[in-house]
């Protein structure tokens, strides 16, 4: 904490500080651990509801509709581009060397989706293949 003494009006009337906690440590949870382990093995891990049969991606511990525990499954459906956008500047406002394409990748017969960096000429609904299993994913348009 420091007293800010710039300007007559501000004298002892304002102060600067950092906000609250210094850092956060998040856990990914049980389902999240399965998902991340899957990425390391080059797999997309989702979860299947034993009651309604829906598959969620990424994996969740429970089915949001039936509210029962799910089991993990590998998602093997065709991956496609649900939507995309093109970014020209970074969050500080500096122009990127080359525009970055970010997309929402979904999988056939699965609920949910994953964010991904897109390579190639993007097309809505177009099939993509995963080239790097990471967060976010890296995919190439087929």
């Amino acid at each position: 904490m420091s007293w800010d003494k710039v300007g007559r009006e501000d004298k002892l009337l304002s102060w600067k500080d950092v906000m609250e906690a210094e850092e956060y440590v998040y856990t990914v949870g049980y389902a999240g651990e399965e998902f991340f382990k899957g990425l390391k093995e080059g797999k997309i891990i989702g979860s299947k509801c034993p009651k309604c049969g829906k598959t969620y991606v990424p994996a969740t511990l429970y089915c949001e509709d039936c509210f029962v525990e799910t089991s993990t499954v590998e998602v093997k459906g065709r991956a496609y581009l649900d939507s995309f956008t093109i970014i020209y500047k970074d969050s500080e406002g500096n122009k990127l060397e080359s525009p970055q394409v970010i997309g929402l990748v979904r999988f056939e017969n699965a609920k949910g989706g994953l964010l991904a960096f897109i390579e190639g000429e993007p097309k809505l609904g177009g099939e993509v293949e995963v080239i790097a299993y990471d967060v976010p994913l890296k995919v190439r348009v087929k």
Partner: protein
Amino acid sequence: MKTNLFYRRVAVIGAGLTLFKRRIVETPREMSWVAARKALDEAGLELKDIDCVVIGSAPDAFDGVHMKGEYLAHGSGGVRKMVSRVFVGGATGVMVPISAWYHVASGLCQSVLAVAEEKMSPARPHPQSVFRYIWDPITEKPLNPNLIWIFAMEMHRYMYVNKVKKEDIALVSVKNKRNAINNPYAQAPANITVDDVLKSEVLVWPVNLLDVSPVSDGAAAMVITSEDIARRYTDTPVWIEGVGWTLDNTEWTGRELAYPRYLEHAARMAYKMAGIERPNKELDVIEPYDPFDYKELHHIEGLMVAKRGEAVKMLKEGVFDMDGDIPSSPSGGLLGVGNPIAAAGLMKAISIYWQLKGTAGKMQVKKPVHTGLAQAWGDLMQASTVVVMRN
């Protein structure tokens, strides 16, 4: 408060808790789901039977997720349902069943899933840092106070005004940690002595380490329904018969610290609704909020279960023991079970619900119980919430 309203009867028919732990693996959503699922199972309901979801959680900054109510809605069964989040600091936990109560009592809903969650472990170096900006920015913040400072001042004032000794206050910690041995969800059960409390590390005089509840992660949930639904699913509903809540001003420096006046107001509101005239005679079991050991005594006086300054005398006589006249914190309270803020308050209400249902297991108090009370307290020592239940 004078009301001329017709309330529908409101029952509790199910409850669930997660383990209370220092650092839990589950995400906040997963924790909410674990508690909510257990509550639904106990009630015999499925998510499709639930009209509306009430979520309680203290500052977003604990879990490190802003819009925490919206975030938690997923694990609380709130997806595509009527969801609201209540927040009155530490008093949130008991505000959750109160809010669920008015959803049902008003006739708006038939069945409510009430969920409280707190994950205290993500913020570093310590969750206490989350409280850095609750102070007056000009007169208080420059001192860099933390909550234990002001509670230490409150405790000191309570000790001075009522001529209470520290070793007497320590008896609360001894009692609650002992009660927690019977609680399968507890984080800090222990058989300790007054000496252990007095010899534990001094944090901020007169508060020692064992005077304070531990930091925890945890979630709690309750299923609260109309009389129709309750009668259909259970033969032993527990009724919410009185609710009360009060907020005092944020200028804690302007208040008499030795007595929680705002709690008296909240308690009077709940007693009036429940038709209680002599709380010390009519309440069979109580769960006053005990993040610090002196707070339990402070609150017992605010609840008018003891006269001002006489809670200690009753404590020493054993009135508040498991086999006493008015068992207090039979769950083990925050001191014994842990303090994931909102979840801890709801845990207290769940404890009373289980006591009245007769399913508290080893936590069950010796005497037969008919009327119980749970209470929570929070914000800048200014908010209190009270719920009275009967079987």
